[in-house]
């Protein structure tokens, strides 16, 4: 088991390299750059910015397109590039390789580089500010999802096709169908503005976490409930449950010891990607409750063509997904000896 975990941890790094490379290439290939503003900056300023952020590499220019170094206006550059397309492409690829190496080196040292949009802040600062908030929110959402979902699913399975089952499944259907941007405001209306139990927004104390956590976790709770019910019903039909009853085991133990362990497998498999998604933030919930988490950076970065920030968010997401899936595989191995490795 330990060898399996170590091997899986080592396996994470090549995957991260692929994710990094892929998102880097996509970012470079996508049209538009971080310094293309609607109101153009002076060409000298833009050139200096690009040099500062390694969008331009003097060595590559000198090697492939020396004429570029004397160019003053964007129109001139465009004309020059059109005149010698192959040299222009070679120069871009060269610059890209330089930038790739530079960024990769920074990533290895844990430095995500400067934000291209907010020039006085580094990407690390954004993540350091947003990640704890998102993690707290995500943790609470996972707690809700498991707490509500497991109990509802268990009750539904035990009382299959009777009213507790129908009640739980209708609630689950609602949880899945009602979008966050409806549930959030409704919860605010009822619990903040109506009952005055919880604050409607901001991020200051534990009571501030409750409503956004519930909003974020509700859909996951609904899925967990359905998966628990389905998994349990599948296991309950199996022969060894009859054996357990024939042994003279109390019904409570038949359910908890024999049925639930097998019934949890689909839930655990689902929790891997679900936790990764929860721990990387939700733009909708963060906007509604004015929570300073990671979710908004992702969207802002994409809109602002903030390459470093967007890439950092992608890589951090990938890390969460990989770690969550590793944890899931270990837990599956504990729950089901047949999937144990080696």
């Amino acid at each position, binding site marked *: 088991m330990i060898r399996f975990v170590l091997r899986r941890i080592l396996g994470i790094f090549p995957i991260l390299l692929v994710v990094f490379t892929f998102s880097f290439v996509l970012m470079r290939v996508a049209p538009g750059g971080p310094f293309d503003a609607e109101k153009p900056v002076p060409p000298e300023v833009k050139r200096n910015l690009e040099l500062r952020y390694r969008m331009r590499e003097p060595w590559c220019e000198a090697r492939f397109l020396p004429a570029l170094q004397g160019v003053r206006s964007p129109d001139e550059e465009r004309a020059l590039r059109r005149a010698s397309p192959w040299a222009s492409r070679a120069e871009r690829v060269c610059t890209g390789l330089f930038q790739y190496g530079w960024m990769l080196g920074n990533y290895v040292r844990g430095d995500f580089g400067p934000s291209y949009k907010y020039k006085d802040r580094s990407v690390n600062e954004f993540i350091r500010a947003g990640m704890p908030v998102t993690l707290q929110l995500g943790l609470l959402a996972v707690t809700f999802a498991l707490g509500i979902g497991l109990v509802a699913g268990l009750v539904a399975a035990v009382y299959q096709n009777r009213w507790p089952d129908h009640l739980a499944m209708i609630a689950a259907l609602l949880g899945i169908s009602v979008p966050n941007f409806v549930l959030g405001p409704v919860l605010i209306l009822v619990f903040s503005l109506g009952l005055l139990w919880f604050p409607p927004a901001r991020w200051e104390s534990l009571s501030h976490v409750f409503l956004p956590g519930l909003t974020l976790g509700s859909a996951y709770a609904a899925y967990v409930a359905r998966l628990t019910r389905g998994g349990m019903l599948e296991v309950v039909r*199996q*022969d*060894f449950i*009859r*054996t*357990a*009853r*024939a*042994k*003279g*085991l*109390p019904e409570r*133990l038949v359910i908890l010891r*024999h049925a639930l*362990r*097998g019934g949890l497998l689909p839930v655990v498999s689902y929790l891997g990607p679900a936790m990764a998604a929860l721990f990387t933030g939700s733009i909708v919930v963060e906007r509604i409750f004015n929570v300073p988490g990671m979710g908004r950076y992702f969207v802002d970065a994409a809109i602002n063509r903030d390459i470093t920030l967007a890439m950092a968010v992608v890589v951090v997401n990938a890390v969460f997904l990989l770690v969550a899936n590793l944890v899931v595989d270990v837990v599956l191995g504990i*729950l*089901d*000896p*047949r999937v144990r490795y080696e």
Partner: protein
Amino acid sequence: MLGRVMEEASTARPLVEVEDLRVHFPVYRGTVLKRKAAVVRAVDGVSFAIARGETLGLVGESGCGKSTTGRALMRLVPVTSGNIRFDGEDLLSLRGEVLRRKRRHFQMIFQDPYGSLDPRMTVFDIVAEPLLAHGMGGPDLRDRVQSMLERCGMNPRYIRRYPHEFSGGQRQRVAIARALILEPSFVVCDEPVSALDVSIRAQVLNLLVELQRDLGLTYLFIAHDLAAVRHVSDRIAVMYLGRIVELSPAAEIYRRPAHPYTQALISAVPIPDPRAEADRQRIVLEGDVPSPLAPPRGCRFHPRCPRFASLGAVQKARCREEEPLLRVLGDGRQVACHHVD
């Protein structure tokens, strides 16, 4: 109702008495408004008794209700009507905690050793759990589990392993140890070898016979195959469509099968001698087993009965109208057919 053999053979009361047992399963139709559309008469009026230390074989085709009978005796399926007395006690009146406590006296070995063992438990946990459930654990729990496994032919070193690491035969040995560790007096063996390789069936059958002798067990031995029960059973009951059609001593049922259905079953058993096998007269039954949703009126076997065609009109009418009851023939055989003397 009980066989004359029983009355003669045992002055003491039989360990298990079953009287007019019926297990009907309702079938529901409709998704929103559920209504009872039909009833599957899985077991429909079955009576027998098993003496202490005896093995009663119960044979019949798939779906004839033999497994359901076994499960009803174990109180694992709801019984529609009838009586089950276990050691003189009315088993059907027990419920809840009283029933749970009683369970240690009657245990069941299931057909499929791949499905009947929890794949997420070690062999030790599987065999120890019944003891713990009945508050019979103790400091020597491990020793008792190991010696039971050893007695069932398992190497006790393997108790930390999981069921999927074993072959079918080994798993069935674990299942037998699991059932017998509670020291029950009555064990239902529900086709305990039919899921196993032919090569190891005899081993497991011999083990069951050995354990019965050593522990003084009483067996209800269910099988769909007459050859398997012949050597372990004292008496054999043949079931067809939820009813017993013949109940006779094991040797008799082979030598002189009385019911036409039993005759057909016996004729289907291959003879392990090519020359005799070539001459074997097979009675091939026409058609399928009728649905237990709507069993035929009168004798349930008459639509497929090979003897029916040769009967006269009056006799045929009797088969169609009147359900034959188990009658005691002079030599201890019991048969449910109007036309056997």
